[in-house]
């Protein structure tokens, strides 16, 4: 009976007795969710354009953040370092298109997927060679990102919102809105979706596959840079950021691999779900459940929608 009480009654009693903590948990979940969504967006962009699951998205986050901080440490002013990092991400996109994707056109998806593994290890080695493996401090003041927190008294307690988290939420929302418009309303966006449907068909109507790939990898690079800045500011800029990218997997399972809104909604559901789960139900099983709870949530949704919340339903004749 006690166990049933602990599972079904006690967490809700806690929510009612300390609503400020509930609000704080929801906020932390939303912030984590937004940041997961940012990582997932990088995956979705490339998957949409090429049907490839880009295993290198995690290391792109690290590489972009390291480039920014590395350039700053080398004496380049912060804003110029940011612009140069964007340029580096563009060069990376061109390099990936020329050296990895172009020779593999029309190869099975698994070949392209494996190529992104190779790219991951190349970027790890190259990043360590150029910037070293030491953790670095993300430049926040220099990029005019706010520090500190805003506290609100609420329900007899308080809720604390970190300014950097608010900024992350705003930046992520702006990026998502911009990408949604880009995909739906622009010529390049439509071309991009055409490429995703069929490389050959897209080529036959005059769409430049190479150009589209550069655009999409560059966009994913920009998303990686934004993600790296936000996650780096919460902790440090190190190769440990790569692990965070794995958190995007349940988000993608949940939201669908081809949907920008899916990445956002999936991110928020996973973020809020894992924080609520860890905070209210985690102590029942010794805590530390976050790492697998996200997958359980995603699997729960998959039982009802195998293609994910916003994924395209694929019917194949056999």
């Amino acid at each position, binding site marked *: 009976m006690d166990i049933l009480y602990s599972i079904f009654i006690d967490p809700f009693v806690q929510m009612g007795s*300390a609503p400020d*903590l509930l609000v*704080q*948990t929801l906020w*932390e979940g939303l*912030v*984590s969710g937004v940041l997961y969504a940012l990582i997932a967006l990088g995956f979705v962009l490339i998957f949409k354009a090429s049907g490839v699951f880009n295993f290198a998205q995690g290391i792109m986050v690290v590489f972009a953040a390291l480039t920014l901080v590395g350039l700053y440490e080398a004496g380049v002013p912060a804003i110029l370092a940011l612009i140069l990092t964007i340029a580096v991400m563009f060069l990376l996109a061109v390099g990936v298109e020329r050296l990895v994707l172009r020779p593999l056109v029309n190869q099975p998806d698994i070949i392209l997927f494996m190529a992104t593994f190779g790219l991951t290890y190349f970027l*790890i080695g190259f990043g*360590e060679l150029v910037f*070293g*493996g*030491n*953790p*670095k*401090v993300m430049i926040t003041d220099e990029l005019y990102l706010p520090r500190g*927190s805003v506290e609100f008294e609420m329900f007899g307690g308080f809720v*604390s919102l*970190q300014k950097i988290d608010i900024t992350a939420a705003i930046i992520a929302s702006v990026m998502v809105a911009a990408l949604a418009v880009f995909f739906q309303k622009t010529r390049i966006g439509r071309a991009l979706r055409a490429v995703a449907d069929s490389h050959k068909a897209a080529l036959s109507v005059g769409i430049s596959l190479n150009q589209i790939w550069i655009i999409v990898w560059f966009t994913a690079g920009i998303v990686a840079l934004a993600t790296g800045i936000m*996650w780096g500011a*919460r*902790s*440090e800029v*190190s*190769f*440990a*950021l*790569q*692990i*965070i990218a*794995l*958190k995007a997997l349940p988000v993608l399972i949940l939201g669908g691999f081809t949907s920008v809104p899916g990445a956002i909604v999936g991110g928020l559901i996973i973020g809020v779900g*894992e*924080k609520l789960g*860890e*905070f209210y139900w*985690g*102590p029942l099983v*010794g*805590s*530390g459940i*976050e*790492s697998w709870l996200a997958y359980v949530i995603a699997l729960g949704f998959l039982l009802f929608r195998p293609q994910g919340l916003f994924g395209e339903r694929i019917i194949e004749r056999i």
Partner: protein
Amino acid sequence: MVRKLSTILATAIVASAFALPAKAQDSIYVPLFTYRTGPFSGSGIPIANGMRDYLTMLNERDGGIGGAKLILEECETGYDTKKGVECYEAVKGKNPVMINPWSTGITLPLIPRAAVDKIPILSMAYGLSASADGETFPWIFNPPNTYWDGLSMIIKYIGEQEGGLDKLKGKKIGYIYLDAGFGREPLPLFDQLARDLGFELKLYPVPADSMQNQSSQWLSVRRDRPDYMVLYGWGALNPTAVKEAAKINYPMEKFISIWWPGDDDMRSAGPGGKGFKTLNWHAVGTDFPALQDIQKLVVDKGLSQAPKNSVGEVLYNRGVYNSMLIAEGIRNAQKLTGKTVVTGEDVRRGLETLNIDEARLKELGLEGFAGPIKLTCTDHNGHRPAFMQQWDGEKWVKISEPIEPMADRVKPLLEAAARDYAEKSTGWPKRTEPCDKQS
């Protein structure tokens, strides 16, 4: 022409055949398991630099140890247990005199192999606490203190802050840790101390993939309001924990860690980390002849991978201390056996009779760097005291006298854990290795 070439080739082969054994006679192979890459490289790099630089300095200054040049080879583990075991398998055929796994997770699977392969394991202040018992674990060494000693020192320090251990009754102590072998290691002692001293223990495990996203754990801390927080973290977990603690306004002077947070961690943690405390047992800085030799003979000559300003930082010096133990183990083995080129079996004996007193520390150019240490056949640890240091925003400052571990509480548990390990490991061998006299 062909005949001439054949003659040259034959001469070269014969010469190399003579040269190889000569080289082998004068060298000792010391593999270093390091992690300069991966998620934990932030902690791994300074330690790897300190370890390598001290041994390189011995090669440069003294030509090695006792006439034998040290052959140093790093094996990158990435702090990954599987890779660590692969490294072990890769180096064990090269007659290593000792293995330094630099991971509790890697140490654990190597413990049963050490006796079989006759290679001693030096897990300096990490690994299995119970392996301090030399009777049960003749091939494992974990000086100068175990994780259990460390925890007992932290609790003792907290007791001092509160006016005595008896004042801990009714208090709440939180434990935030890497949810892996390392972080889970002190749990049995923590549970026991909570029962014995009457404080409530709250656990906040952090899975490796959440190291940089600890908001749930710190929300729970905010809810539970522990009087003190204890940290056993590694890699990115440390700066993130400090940042999150600052975020919920947790009083930093009540946040105390085991000895692993480094200078880089605290710089990443930012200004909120001021006041954070950790244990330590050796000095920071370069004001020691041995450290100055490293700078002159290794760093200045470009033989080090360490940035100049990192020499003397806490984790760099931790690596130096580790290599001082390696070197003294080898030197002691040479003394015991009369051989220049010693084996793993010899070095096991060397470590078991290690006695580094104040005079020896002075000879080593490390006077005042750390306290003396003496190991025996039964005690492979030393259980040395550590002191508390505090981050002042820029550097670590020593803030306490040496704190002795609670031997009366730790020792019986360690012995019981060692017995338990031997009983549960089918066919665990009884010690047959003879015990040498102290050198």
